């Protein structure tokens, strides 16, 4: 018990890094994902081709590789980022691609008649997207987004590769220093607590949208 209290502060400071990567990635990638998703359903082909290439690159290569590339590779072409912004940059780029595909699916499942009835009611395109399409898409995509959100908590552990001190790294350091598995068990418990809270929040979100069918 004493040992746990002794290592807990370092684990919690690691958890803070994990949460901050998680939070800022979501804040950036969700709106960007919606915009890229809209782009993927647009009729302008060259634009769509570029976005598809981007999605393919981001989903087709490991996030770990992308992290390494942003932090160690980009400086070679004169684009240097600090560790933390580099991690956020790679995470947002990667998660935007996944969210974009989810939003694309949601957008395509909206009945074209909804756009038409908005059009004869004289709503502009953006009013239609904001007031008619987005609320319906959000309800449809929530379960899939939730999946990615849970994944993001665990994926954030990849930042150790560019030397950021997150939760997993804090546990690893303690384990190799003190030759005990206790820190890693604690790390597991903290991850489980975080995902439990998220699962609860996501379920509340889904319930919030259950007032209509």
């Amino acid at each position, binding site marked *: 018990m004493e040992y746990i209290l002794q290592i807990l502060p370092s684990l919690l400071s690691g958890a803070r890094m994990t949460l901050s990567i998680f939070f800022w990635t979501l804040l950036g990638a969700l709106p960007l994902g919606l915009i890229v998703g809209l782009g993927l359903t647009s009729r302008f082909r060259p634009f769509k081709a570029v976005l598809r290439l981007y999605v393919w690159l981001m989903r087709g290569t490991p996030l770990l590789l992308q992290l390494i590339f942003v932090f160690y590779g980009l400086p070679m072409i004169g684009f240097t980022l600090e560790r933390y912004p580099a991690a956020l940059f790679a995470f947002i780029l990667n998660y935007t691609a996944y969210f974009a595909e989810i939003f694309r699916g949601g957008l395509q499942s909206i*009945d074209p*008649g*909804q756009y*038409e*009835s908005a*059009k*004869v*009611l*004289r*709503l*502009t395109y953006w*009013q239609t997207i904001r*007031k*008619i399409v987005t*609320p*319906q898409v959000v*309800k449809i995509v929530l379960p899939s987004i939730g999946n990615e959100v849970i994944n993001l908590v665990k994926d954030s552990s990849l930042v150790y590769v560019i030397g950021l001190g997150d939760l997993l790294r804090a546990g690893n350091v303690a384990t190799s220093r003190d030759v005990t598995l206790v820190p890693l068990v604690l790390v597991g418990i903290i991850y489980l607590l975080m995902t439990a809270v998220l699962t609860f929040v996501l379920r509340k979100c889904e319930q919030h949208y259950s*007032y*209509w*069918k």
Partner: protein
Amino acid sequence: MLELKNITKSFNQRIVWKNLSLKIQDGQILCVVGQSGGGKTTLLRCISGLERLDKGQMLLDGQPFDPIASRNNDAVIGVVFQDFQLFPHLTVLENITLAPKLALKESNQTAVEAARELLTKLSLADKADLYPYQLSGGQKQRVAIARALAMKPKILCYDEPTSALDPGLRDKVKAIILQLKAAGMTQIVVTHDWEFAQQIADQTFKIEPQKQ
């Protein structure tokens, strides 16, 4: 008065109709009848600005009229779709007030008052706070009518208003259409239901499938 002059529409070389001309007098009911696949709905989509004409002209009170271009605030053509296309995430009241508020810039109070009045007229006053999934087919249709009327259109169009309803509800739709006529509304009804057309029409127009 809405006048269509020598209008032609085709999709990928397939002619839907050619050199079609038609006049609708103010306050009257025009029924467009014909077999399915004959282009009735396409005509309605052209009039409401959802499709572009290949050739020909539309005149509204003698002035050239392009429903696609006229995206300003004077809503001219209202449409009641076959499957209604209510917005599922909005209540009945919100469905009706959304467009007047966004497109006509009406205040919330004005829009809500007008909507409640329409709901009362269409005997839906107690349904204002329900969501579309909680309504029957006939009720959904009346909400769609109220939503179109809230934009104060000069002409109201219906696409197959009887097809999604039980036979008993046909008379109810008929009553509503005639009630709107009495109030001076010009209406275009696209239907394959001959009997229904004969009961309400001042003028019927038959669209024949084109021989290719």
